[in-house]
């Protein structure tokens, strides 16, 4: 006999657990009468989201804009550089170490420097770009290199040109890796944007969500901090689901990762 939970649609069990946790949270706050400046109840957080919408949503828009811009730039940059690496292997030997150095140095440590050298807006954008860039570059490079030997022979045998080989063979066979890189990069772009906003503080002309959270912290407006946090995680979740959907759509016919788990 299968457990009744396993017969529900896939998204249902986690949703149930999540709602149960929220309910428990609400109950504890009410029963123990915890003051909102220590731990606000979920209902209060939702109310704050609504009441402070004039502050929070413009801030969300700014953060989303930065994240999206950085993600786009990282995707373009990562793919272009990966294509260069694939075309000229010596370029990979020359430049990959630098990409790795940038990757392994924690972005939180680089952000304050960027804020000094660049104006606040470009610093935030650069920061988000730097974290999102590497996984896209690394995955795309890996994908372009991981081509089936026999297919390479096949293309060679039929006299494929270099560009035919790249666009009709290496690119499609690397696509799953590239999309994996995008999923990681999308999440990291948001993290990068938040980290940079924290470092930049109020220096930027438009204040993003991270700035609003810090500001609310100074005022001990804990419910608003939670409301801001909620918006950030919702943004992250949305990015993840959008990119997963794109990935499934593009790979649905052929790649194992896009097969439905139903048998």
């Amino acid at each position, binding site marked *: 006999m299968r457990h009744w939970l396993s017969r529900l649609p896939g998204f249902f069990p986690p949703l149930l657990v999540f709602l149960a946790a929220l309910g428990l949270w609400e109950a504890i706050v009410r029963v123990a009468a915890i003051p909102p400046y220590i731990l606000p109840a979920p209902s209060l957080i939702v109310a704050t989201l609504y009441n402070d919408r004039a502050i929070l949503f413009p801030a969300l828009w700014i953060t989303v804009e930065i994240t999206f811009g950085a993600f786009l730039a990282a995707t373009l940059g990562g793919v272009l550089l990966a294509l260069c690496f694939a075309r000229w292997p010596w370029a990979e030997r020359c430049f990959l170490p630098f990409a790795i150095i940038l990757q392994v140095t924690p972005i939180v440590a680089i952000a304050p420097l960027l804020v000094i050298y660049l104006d606040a807006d470009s610093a935030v954008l650069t920061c988000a770009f730097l974290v999102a860039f590497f996984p896209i570059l690394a995955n795309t490079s890996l994908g372009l290199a991981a081509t*089936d030997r*026999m*297919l390479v022979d*096949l293309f060679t*045998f039929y*006299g*494929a040109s270099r560009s035919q080989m790249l666009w*009709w063979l290496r690119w499609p066979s690397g*696509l799953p890796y590239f999309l994996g890189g995008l999923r990681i990069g999308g999440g990291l772009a948001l993290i990068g944007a938040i980290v940079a906003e924290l470092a930049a503080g109020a220096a930027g002309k438009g204040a993003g969500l991270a700035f609003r959270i810090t500001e609310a912290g100074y005022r001990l407006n804990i419910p608003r901090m939670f409301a801001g946090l909620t918006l950030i995680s919702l943004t992250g979740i949305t990015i993840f689901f959008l990119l997963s959907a794109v990935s499934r759509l593009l790979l649905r016919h052929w*790649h194992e990762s896009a097969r439905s788990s139903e048998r």
Partner: protein
Amino acid sequence: MMQNEPARILVSLRDVSKVYRNGTEALRDISFEVRQGECVTLLGPSGCGKSTVLRLIAGLDPVSSGVLTHERGETVGPDSRCDMGFVFQEPALMPWANVFDNVFLPLRLIGQRRKETRSKIEAILAQVGLSDFQKAYPNQLSGGQRMRVSIARALVRDPALLLLDEPFAALDEITRFRLNDDLLRLRETFGTTFVFITHSIYESVYLSSRILVMAAAPGRIVEEIAIDASLERDENFRLGETYLAYCRKVTRALEYASGARV
């Protein structure tokens, strides 16, 4: 028809050797020629360089010494390749493309349009019994069906010479018999010449007009066995006394070749 006039030579190898960069001598003094209408099988223990011979003919690897000549002149340019098809050990299909597009690839690579070639590709898919699978993706096909797609792809440019590198090694016996018969039928339809690699004695006798038995270290040809081409290749042939006699003969040659290695 071709018994009357001497058939033209499609490929000839004269004292061809292959030494890899690390010094391994893969092939030594390989000499043979393939005439139009033949099915020449290279048979030998693993590691004897059968596949290497095929790769040299295909122009995928350069010859170290000796002369390899295609009908159109000395190797090896894209020009000489136009007249060949290659069936690899595995189906080697593009998993992201459906059956039609996989078969279309060799034509697409020389700049032909999908529309212009549709009827041709449909005809070839019908020949290999895959008419209903044009839109299917490789992961929806069985192993035998994938191999048929691979064969269709190899035939799509109407090659004079078809190179097959142990194409059926991974298939079960029944599928293998069926594909052997299909191959013979296709050969009649298209008039294609075959160079076939296998390590199955039975398959080699069933398909070939000539068997070249190879030995390893270094790879070389130790014996040549002609199979009477006039014999009808069907189930009766496979069960008959002549077939078994040929198989015994080839077995002995192969035993000698394998022994000669040690």
